[in-house]
């Protein structure tokens, strides 16, 4: 899911060639973002657009040859005059009379030309890794450039940049090229993105553009172009850029009197790999050249400040909301003077509002992570590791919101319950840290699903390695790290590759709060009264089927409905209560038999009360619901979502330790098997470990030490 949808998407058409553009956000001055088409398109700006569009009107263009634009066949169609005319047409169509132009690589000469020829339309240029013949290119380009049209035998490496090699088999080139352009460790996602955008066009287009491009590679011509630019220029260039040497960026800054920001160790795609830094550089530049009127506000002298905390609750599932509210209640008991704001999104906000908690207004700017996860799931299947990777632009967007909040909010303490964006980007940009930071999680370590093979094992290990390196290099970013559970809850696996065991590393880097339940389970002697209140009779065997608040659970509900007739035969007096939840229309479920023993309900208020007194529950493999059942000592069947490593490994390991629940495999569970499992477990007394009830208080004590 995108972090921010465009307000308008359209095309301009010139001589029959359509060029796609998007408009998003508002605010002066407008920004015009030009990608280095056709090897990429406007999606390459995804780390920047959500942030910049909160402050400015942002116009992006795909550029002829890729994305939503046409791919004309003739080389002449890619000449600089055509491109320049496209850009003016887009500016006109988008109603942008004047803009700061932001361009990458060989789009930089286009931007400079626009600035030189239409000085009234361009108030500044941000040149990222500019491609201009102002300084010699790296030696590895010489041979491929000279032999572009020759037939080369068995090319590899830079020699893949060859007309014939492309025609024979194009994908090896972008795969090699972007591997070279992302020399930074742990860039797998940026690499996958770049290659996939490159493959959104075809080889004929790539060749036509390459042969039609008339870039100012001649030194005099390039210098003349730079000298013709009168507006302010910012150059951003990585020292490890293997496409365009940093000497070119340096010279561009000199010739235009512009500012040069060298990103030490960065490759050719800093806007992809270092989006936070690049966002901030662009904003600072735009504010400086265009002016940013001051807004008023309040600054409180240090000793006059009340103690303030900002609490972030992971929005994926409602479980975190309840546990975080429980922690905050305990924290307020220990530190009554502490003022707490929440930065949170739906559905967490609904819980917080009901509790009367204070929600920071910037919460409205957050892109919805829960909706992203829903969009990533299909029939009882959520590859949550890949879904998290694909959430990258949402995490950048939300981090930028968070950072603005903490820079203005004078918070003493930041508590992030699985606030991945904060933890990750503060480690990536440690100079941005504000306030003490408490990191909370209920699992540590990405684990590969078996059917992901070696590649997924490589990816999870790479993510784990980055996290371990982050914490080793910047131990000051996490002032406290709380594992919501106990050491025995940690899986016995390693982080992958040569990395350490998860348990030993976690024990060395975390404090343990024990499990945090959002509510207290009823005493056994309270159960009959609650059952009576809920209308569950003694002669009934009540089986509650629930899938939580997401829309992912439909398939499981229908599977249970299909198993009901068989189950009833095996379990006399079976009453099955299927809770569809707020996101699934009960009437839309298929296979409903007309049997008084089966009922389907929509949203059920305080579902945990039903779960805590039922004779059997059937649920997904999420931690919160299964642990509620474990705490209430109920028998239950749980079906982990397929490809959900957390549910399949971390949660399952924890439940096994408590001896709670029976794990069921969704794919192989037919109605017969389900009916048998229901009959085996319903009404059985359970003898598993007690779930601790002091987790919230223990977590609060760990947090309170910092206040």
């Amino acid at each position, binding site marked *: 899911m995108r972090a921010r949808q465009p307000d308008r998407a359209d095309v301009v058409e010139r001589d029959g060639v359509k060029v796609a553009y998007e408009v998003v956000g508002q605010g002066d001055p407008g920004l015009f973002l030009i990608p280095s088409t056709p090897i990429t398109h406007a999606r390459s700006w995804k780390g920047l657009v959500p942030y910049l569009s909160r402050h400015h009107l942002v116009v992006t263009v795909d550029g002829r040859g890729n994305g939503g634009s046409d791919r004309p066949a003739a080389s002449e169609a890619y000449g600089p005059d055509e491109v320049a005319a496209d850009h003016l047409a887009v500016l006109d169509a988008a109603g942008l009379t004047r803009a700061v132009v932001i361009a990458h690589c060989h789009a930089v000469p286009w931007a400079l030309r626009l600035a030189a020829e239409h000085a009234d339309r361009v108030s500044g240029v941000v040149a990222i890794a500019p491609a201009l013949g102002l300084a010699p290119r790296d030696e590895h380009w010489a041979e491929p450039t000279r032999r572009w049209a020759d037939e080369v035998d068995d090319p590899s490496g830079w020699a893949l940049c060859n007309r014939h090699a492309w025609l024979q088999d194009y994908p090896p080139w972008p795969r090699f090229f972007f591997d070279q352009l992302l020399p930074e460790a742990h860039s797998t996602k940026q690499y996958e993105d770049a290659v996939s955008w490159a493959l959104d066009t075809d080889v004929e287009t790539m060749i036509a553009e390459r042969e039609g491009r008339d870039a100012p590679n001649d030194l005099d011509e390039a210098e003349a172009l730079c000298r013709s630019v009168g507006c302010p220029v910012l150059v951003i260039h990585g020292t490890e850029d293997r496409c365009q040497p940093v000497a070119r960026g340096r010279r561009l800054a000199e010739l235009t009197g512009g500012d040069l920001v060298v990103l030490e160790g960065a490759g050719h795609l800093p806007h992809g790999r270092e989006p936070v830094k690049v966002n901030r550089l662009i904003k600072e530049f735009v*504010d400086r050249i265009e*002016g940013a009127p*001051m807004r*008023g506000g*309040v*600054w409180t*002298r240090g000793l006059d400040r009340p103690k303030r905390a900002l609490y972030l609750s992971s929005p994926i599932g409602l479980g975190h909301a309840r546990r975080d509210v429980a922690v905050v209640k305990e924290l307020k008991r220990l530190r009554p003077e502490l003022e707490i704001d929440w930065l949170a999104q739906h559905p967490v906000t609904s819980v917080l509002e009901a509790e009367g908690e204070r929600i920071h207004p910037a919460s409205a700017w957050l892109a919805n992570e829960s909706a992203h996860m829903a969009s990533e799931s299909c029939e009882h299947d959520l590859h949550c590791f890949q879904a998290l990777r694909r959430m990258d632009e949402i995490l950048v967007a939300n981090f930028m919101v968070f950072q603005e909040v903490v820079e203005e909010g004078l918070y003493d303490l930041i508590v992030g319950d699985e606030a991945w964006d904060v933890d990750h980007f503060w480690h990536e940009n440690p100079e941005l840290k504000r306030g003490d930071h408490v990191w909370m999680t209920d699992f540590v370590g990405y684990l590969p699903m078996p059917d992901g093979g070696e590649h997924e094992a490589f990816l999870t290990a790479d993510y784990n390695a980055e996290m371990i390196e982050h914490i080793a290099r910047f131990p000051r970013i996490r002032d406290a790290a709380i594992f919501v559970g106990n050491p025995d809850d940690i899986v016995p696996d390693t982080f992958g590759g040569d990395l350490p065991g998860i348990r030993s590393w976690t024990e060395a880097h975390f404090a343990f709060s024990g499990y945090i339940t959002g509510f207290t389970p009823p005493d056994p002697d309270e159960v009959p009264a609650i059952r009576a209140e809920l209308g569950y009779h003694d002669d009934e065997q009540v089986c509650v089927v629930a899938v939580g608040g997401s829309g992912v659970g439909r398939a499981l509900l229908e599977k249970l409905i299909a198993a009901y007739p068989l189950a009833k035969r095996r379990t006399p007096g079976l009453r099955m209560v299927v809770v569809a939840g707020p996101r699934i229309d009960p009437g839309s479920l298929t296979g409903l038999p007309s049997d008084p023993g089966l009922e389907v309900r929509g949203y059920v208020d305080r579902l945990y009360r039903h779960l805590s007194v039922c004779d059997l529950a059937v649920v997904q493999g999420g931690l919160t619901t299964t642990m509620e059942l474990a705490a209430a000592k109920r028998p239950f069947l749980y079906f982990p979502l397929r490809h959900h490593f957390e549910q399949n490994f971390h949660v399952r390991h924890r439940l096994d330790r408590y001896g709670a629940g029976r794990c069921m495999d969704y794919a192989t569970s037919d109605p017969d098997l389900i009916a048998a499992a229901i009959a085996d477990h319903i009404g059985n007394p359970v003898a598993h470990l007690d779930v601790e009830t002091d987790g919230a208080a223990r977590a609060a004590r760990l947090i309170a030490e910092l206040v």
Partner: protein
Amino acid sequence: MRAVVADADGAVTRDGITVRYERHGSAAPSLVLLPTWSLVHARHWKLQVPYLARHYSVLSFDGRGNGRSDRPTGLAAYDPAEFAADTLAVMDATETERAVLVSVSRGVLWSLRLCAEHPERVLGAIFIDPIVPFAFPPAQRALLARFDEPVVEDPVGWEKYKAAYWKADYPDFVDFFIGRMFTEPHSTKQHEDAVAWALETDPATMIATNHGLRVSTAEVMGRLADRVRCPTLVIHGSRDAICRHSQGVALAERTRGALVTLEGSGHCPHLRDPVRVNLLIRRFVEGLGR
């Protein structure tokens, strides 16, 4: 020892009265740190100059009546128009075409005049804890009206704000007044500094300077404020016991500027909370664009 030495210093003389200025730094744009009431002189900017001079060309001068500037006699010499003209003279002498004006307290009386009457010379204006006659609480208006009245026996507090008392015991008035400036705990050094600066001038001069406030009526200042077109910023302490916070609110409204409230700050936060004030000045200047 000073944190930085001036890159240039000089003097301007108008009608025989000499005012000495300093320039620190050379980068554009220029800032003029205006004099305030002659109770103190340009050293009250000592915590701003070293920082701001690394980024801007910073002009400051001792207002007539204190420091190294002349101490003319007669009320007319202390008219706000004279302070404004001194500022322009310093800008002319240093070939400063336009500048951001930063003023504190009574400095607003001449700063506003420059904004209104010489908009082509002013890029923007920052008013720190401004004295705003069109927003005076009645008690302050009454106090100023009694300036020339006899002193009561054993005066306490604001009863010391009288010409006659200054003649009798100027140091005691200074100690009282400066005690009201720094209401924040732990302000001994700021207090000592300000007292020392105040004792560099004399009671007769100080009595004459009161003329500036007397002629700055609510009507005069309101008209000037209404004419301001440049970007403005008001910085005002919530516990300012000299110029109430409500005065800053009124000036920000009337000049359509931003208001930053310093919660817990007294009068002259540029001395007591220099880091925040420095950053606010920088933020304002950077926000003006190139």
